[in-house]
């Protein structure tokens, strides 16, 4: 079930809101747990058992982290979690790389990367002493299975919501903010991501050697907008729904497309994942505390794993290592030069490299990626041209996508937020956007989020 589906919007969400607000407060967590499990079972009737096993395993391992078996429990929890992840997500990749082709395909449950990492972060935080193991298994189950962030993040740390799991305040103001955030996220998904995604798909399916350079760049730009608005839209909906239920999830994006370096980009993009790898892989490996060579190795390891997390294919490993190399170069070669460079130049540098990164990410294989990048530099034969016509068809979405990827509108909103008229206008606008999104839900067929692959 995706948040932009009719079933979610008009059956699931009204039902969970009704149960949550009508039943006594002490039932709140139970309601969320039941509905979260139902939410997951709806899309993964068989996968629900894997998630329940994951929850149970992490609950038990965390309890053992307060006795003399803590190191063993930690190791076992890592083996357990990575074992589940490797089996369901990477077994096919591993076997095919070993030359074994005759094996039964393992169906990967939706969101396994997210809930596995979430479970692991809980165990790690207990081990580090950042939090105490939760005795109530229902609280752990609610935390890991909480439907707003279950299948596509953000990856929520237990420490972020452990207080709110026990006691949380729900106010009209918070609920209204949550609804606003939800509608903004849904609008990003339906009005921008889906539309520009269609354009990107149209261009990316074309044989790259036939693309004109403008068409290739248009495809890359549209894909960059699609993946940003798709994923940040989903995060907005998750954060918004969290607020409706009294939870404060951390932000996952911070205007990454205005970054002036790759380092800054990754400090603003999918922040819950990058901080997860920083806190649980990079720092335990030694981070930057063990010399330059070790730091470079740590960066390469982290980014190889980041690439693999996104998909079980060498293309994703290559994508991760692409960013590792850029980050290393910024750190040790031209970082200072970049910091002193004119802002515009730094933006162009960052955006260009990010666009090439998305071409790698979206490419079907190495040949396709090289061909596409070649087309961006004019090496295609331009049989498939007409970028101006195609961009003109979607000028409204392209302009809106460019505008909303900067904090300009938000800053404008802050200036007027205390004016009653402005607030009323904004909310009327949000309701109208909600209605438009509903119309588009009806008008379009099933439409999965990109990050559902993970």
């Amino acid at each position: 079930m995706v948040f932009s589906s009719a079933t979610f919007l008009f059956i699931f969400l009204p039902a969970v809101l009704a149960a949550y607000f009508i039943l006594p407060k002490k039932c709140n967590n139970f309601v969320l747990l039941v509905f979260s499990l139902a939410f997951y079972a709806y899309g993964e009737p068989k996968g629900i058992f894997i998630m329940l096993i994951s929850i149970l395993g992490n609950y038990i391992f965390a309890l053992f982290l307060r006795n003399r078996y803590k190191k063993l429990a930690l190791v076992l929890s890592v083996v357990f979690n990575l074992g589940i992840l490797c089996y369901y997500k990477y077994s096919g990749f591993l076997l095919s790389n070993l030359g074994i082709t005759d094996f039964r395909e393992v169906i990967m449950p939706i969101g396994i990367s997210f809930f596995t990492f979430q479970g692991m972060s809980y165990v790690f935080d207990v081990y580090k002493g950042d939090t105490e193991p939760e005795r109530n298994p229902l609280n752990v189950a609610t935390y890991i299975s909480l439907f707003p962030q279950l299948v596509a993040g953000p990856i929520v740390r237990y420490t972020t919501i452990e207080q709110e799991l026990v006691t949380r305040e729900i106010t009209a103001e918070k609920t209204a903010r949550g609804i606003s955030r939800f509608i903004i996220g849904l609008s990003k998904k339906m009005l921008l991501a889906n539309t520009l995604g269609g354009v990107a798909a149209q261009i990316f399916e074309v044989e790259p050697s036939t693309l004109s350079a403008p068409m290739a760049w248009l495809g890359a730009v549209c894909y960059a907008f699609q993946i940003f608005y798709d994923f940040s839209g989903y995060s907005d909906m998750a954060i918004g729904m969290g607020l409706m239920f009294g939870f404060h999830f951390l932000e996952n994006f911070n205007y990454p497309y205005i970054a002036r370096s790759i380092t800054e980009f990754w400090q603003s993009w999918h922040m819950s994942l990058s901080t997860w790898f920083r806190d649980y892989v990079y720092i335990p490996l030694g981070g930057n505390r063990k010399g330059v060579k070790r730091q470079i190795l740590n960066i390469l390891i982290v980014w190889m794993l980041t690439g693999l997390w996104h998909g079980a294919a060498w293309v994703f490993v290559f994508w991760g290592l692409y960013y590792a190399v850029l980050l290393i170069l910024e750190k040790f070669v031209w970082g200072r030069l970049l910091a002193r460079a004119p802002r515009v130049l730094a933006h162009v540098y960052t955006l260009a490299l990010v666009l090439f990164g998305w071409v790698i990410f979206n490419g079907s294989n190495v040949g396709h990626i090289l061909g596409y990048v070649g087309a961006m530099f004019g090496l295609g034969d331009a049989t498939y041209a007409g970028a101006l016509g195609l961009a003109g068809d979607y000028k409204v979405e392209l302009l809106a996508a460019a505008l909303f990827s900067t904090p300009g509108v938000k800053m404008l909103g802050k200036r007027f937020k205390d004016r009653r008229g402005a607030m009323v206008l904004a909310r009327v606008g949000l309701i109208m956007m909600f209605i438009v999104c509903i119309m588009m839900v009806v008008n379009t067929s099933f439409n999965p989020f990109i990050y559902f692959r993970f």
Partner: protein
Amino acid sequence: MRIGNRIFIAVFVLILAFVPVATALSPKKLTDEYEFRTLQRRPELTSERLLSGKYMSDWEVYFKDNFFMRDAIIKACAYTELNVLKRTVVNNVFVSDGHVLPVLPYRAPVDSTSTVVREAAEKIANAARVTESYGGEYLLVGLPSQSSAFHELYPKHVFDNWDNQQKVNAEFYSALDDLGVQYVDMYTVFKDENGFEDSYYKTDHHLNIGGALRVYQKIAEELALSVYDNLEFYVLTDEMIGSRARYLHGVSPFLDKLEVFKPTIPVRTREDNGEAVAPEVLSLDMRNYGVFMGGDVGETVVKTERPELPNVLVYGASYTNAVEALLYQSCNEMRSIDQRVYTKLTIEEYIEIYKPDFVIQIVDDRSFER
């Protein structure tokens, strides 16, 4: 501000509550006339469907198919895309120079499709050999599809597959030559006569009566049939919504003229799938392409009881319908098979049983590789 928050929440909740209730209470349609399909019925619960996830996904389709004010919503979206946002492509069709044309699925440039095309040509040659084995004559009529006929109207950024199609056409006809199959290439005929504009509907993928007449004349010429083309034509309706215009859910900027004719040769008997039906070739109550022969029927047998004229079998898909409505005039008995629907016998078996004097296959160029 507090009251504002509560009103905002109330409106949101009202929308969430109103929509499912309105959807549940609104009357349910069985089919959608624009999409030409049966709308999803209430899903059936079985353990297999539940475990596979099909039961849940069908509920999503059911909800959207029966959504409150669905038709109005889809129409509004199409209108907005076409007239406000001024998109070239809306719902997989685009409007160009007075035509509503299809967006074709992308296909990478092909160097050669000779293997696939050769196999398709050999299938045709089999039917030709069976026909010729008892002294019959076989003719293949190759029709340009709408996208081929109007490939020049495609904007640069809308895929027309014309380069690939030309290769396929050349290889297909070359294979037929090698196999000794008699054929007519209607693309060349229409091109030479500058006849595309007059031969196709504006909003439908089929030939109009003008195009069907030209095909009938060409068939008669190739097979030395007597031709009855001195007919009185008239407009049945100016507001035909063609197959392409249906994608626009009633907001197509123009509609089509559905022209028919007054038959002069009486149909003595007609059978559809073995059952006697009204002896006519035009179903004048229909206001679309289905007027010709009453639409797609698996097997039709039309008799004019003129034994001096030949017995003819014509087969293919829906492109044959308008041609059949004219061709029967030149026949004592005309049998027609819609290959998409008829499953009782293979075409070779059918030919062997009924041994028509002439066997004609009408096929559009997008089917040359099948």
